[in-house]
């Protein structure tokens, strides 16, 4: 059962071949026996999951099932879950039990899905390797047969590893600069970062509010569509949520791709990309041509500035968002503070990890008197230039394709000593967040036994088209079905 997709499991439940209780127990058993080697979960909610499975079976028996009723899945530990601790990968929130649900959590609950636990992540979603988690690094299920263990990518590394290792068929994730697509690529699964504002951010612990977007991870594009059907939609509780109709994302998966216009941004096929990686991506593009798509080169001339703009905007917004962690109302508080300033400064020094502190300090610096115009305002102007590149490109083509990452999964510890080296991991994903457009990563081959991701980028609100393109590719390839050995 653990190799089946959400769509397949849903049919098994519907046919009565298996109950949600049996299915949930199977996945819980699998997490128990396998996750010791991956550390992809921070919290496993066995009791709650079994109770939810029982009520899902009752709902189904009563004829009130949705496609998700009784299907097990996991939440990234950034989505607040009422009564279940939500850590965001941080000591600061080690014992934080939210008194409310995120809208995304509520949506899955309402659909009858069974959450089996909360997945590991880089602390406050800041990282590209899942090594900054207070709850320990996550190991990529791929490459375990090699000498050294590999990172799963980050920040949604726990969700990606859990899906790749078949511990759950699907998991929620978030993407601020590549945190869905990069781990999806490194773990050989399919992930989607929707348009900014498509999925509610309410109850999703904030990192950089103008960039953060919740999204989906599963092995197939079809399952990503099933997830987005549940997650997308207007939410009055999120002030940047977009009020726009949500299509049925599964309805257009089988549209033919004949005539699809694909653009290859020349800046994303640069010398940062290894020839072996490039070959895999070019092979994938050739598959699309066989499906009737046409291909041309396009340019994103300002894309080279994306990392620089991002590392002003994201830390600046993080420094503001994370100022709420002060030890007063919830979360960690230092022992025996001697005065208020001591409580703030020691709580934050002890509660945050090194990368989070670096980013808060950079952000505070960029926003401080005398530097605001040179950094924050300048970065926001560059952000518009980057957005304009995408708007121009989508006048010529329907989708853009590129590698998701410059190289496959790297070895644990390889990039932790220099933050900037780690930041460059997101060179092909970050501009997409700055522009706010949607993008996917789809398994597209292997280099040295490690998965390679194809990034497919679309115009605003073109999630259905991206999922259609990914689904059609998955009808003629089997990269997404490969299982880590």
């Amino acid at each position, binding site marked *: 059962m653990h190799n089946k997709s959400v769509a397949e499991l849903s049919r098994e439940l519907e046919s009565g071949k298996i109950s949600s209780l049996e299915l949930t127990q199977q996945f819980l058993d699998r997490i128990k026996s396998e996750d010791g080697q991956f550390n992809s979960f921070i919290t496993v909610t066995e009791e709650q999951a079994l109770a939810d499975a029982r009520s899902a079976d009752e709902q189904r028996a009563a004829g009130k099932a949705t496609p998700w009723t009784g299907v097990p899945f996991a939440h990234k530990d950034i989505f607040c879950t009422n009564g279940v601790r939500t850590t965001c990968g941080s000591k600061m929130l080690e014992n934080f039990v939210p008194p409310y649900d995120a809208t995304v959590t509520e949506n899955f609950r309402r659909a009858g899905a069974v959450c089996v636990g909360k997945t590991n992540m880089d602390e406050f979603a800041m990282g590209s390797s899942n090594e900054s988690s207070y709850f320990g690094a996550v190991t990529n299920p791929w490459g375990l047969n090699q000498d050294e263990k590999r990172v799963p990518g980050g920040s949604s590394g726990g969700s990606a590893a859990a899906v790749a290792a078949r511990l759950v068929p699907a998991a929620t994730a978030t993407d601020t600069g590549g945190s869905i697509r990069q781990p999806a690529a490194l773990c050989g699964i399919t992930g989607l970062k929707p348009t900014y504002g498509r999925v509610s951010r309410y109850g999703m612990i904030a990192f950089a509010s*103008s960039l953060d977007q919740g999204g989906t991870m599963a092995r197939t594009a079809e399952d990503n569509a099933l997830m987005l059907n549940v997650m997308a939609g207007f939410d009055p509780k999120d002030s940047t949520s977009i009020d726009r109709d949500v299509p049925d994302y599964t309805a257009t998966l089988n549209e033919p791709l004949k005539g699809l216009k694909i653009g290859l941004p020349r800046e994303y096929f640069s010398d940062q990309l290894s020839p072996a990686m490039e070959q895999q991506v070019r092979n994938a593009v050739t598959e699309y041509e066989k499906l009737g798509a046409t291909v041309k080169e396009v340019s994103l001339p300002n894309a080279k500035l994306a990392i620089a703009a991002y590392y002003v905007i994201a830390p600046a917004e993080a420094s503001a968002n994370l100022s709420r962690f002060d030890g007063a109302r*919830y979360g960690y508080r230092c022992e025996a503070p001697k005065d*208020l300033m001591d409580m703030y400064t020691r709580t934050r020094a002890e509660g945050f990890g090194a990368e989070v502190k*670096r980013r808060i300090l950079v952000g505070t*610096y960029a926003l401080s008197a005398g530097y605001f115009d040179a950094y924050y305002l300048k970065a*926001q102007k560059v952000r518009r*230039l980057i957005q304009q590149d995408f708007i121009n490109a989508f006048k010529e083509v329907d989708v853009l394709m590129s590698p998701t990452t410059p190289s496959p999964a790297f070895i644990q510890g390889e990039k932790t000593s220099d933050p900037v080296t780690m930041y460059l991991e997101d060179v092909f994903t970050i501009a997409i967040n700055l522009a706010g457009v949607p993008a996917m990563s789809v398994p597209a081959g292997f280099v040295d036994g490690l998965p390679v991701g194809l990034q497919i980028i679309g115009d605003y609100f073109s999630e259905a088209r991206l999922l259609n393109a990914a689904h059609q590719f998955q009808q003629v390839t089997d990269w997404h079905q490969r299982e880590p050995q």
Partner: protein
Amino acid sequence: MTISRKDIEKVAVLARIRVDEEQVSALETDLGNILDLVDQLAAADTANVEPMAHPLNAVQRLRADEVTETNQREAFQAIAPATENGLYLVPRVIE
């Protein structure tokens, strides 16, 4: 662009994060490297470019001025580090 020890100490105070003496050197290097990366922005021509705050140029929605939330003080205070008589306790602020 380099960042001085003095800058780091000042920013640490603004950010309310205690930075110990022995951490300052490492931060000088790390933050200096990040600011070097960020300094590429200076070369971009952004004359007549409007800063972008929201990808879809949306503005903050306003809601009707009506009470919609119920009081959940007990639930919120149940997860607080220290409370008494419905109040959050912090170290003494006014002598």
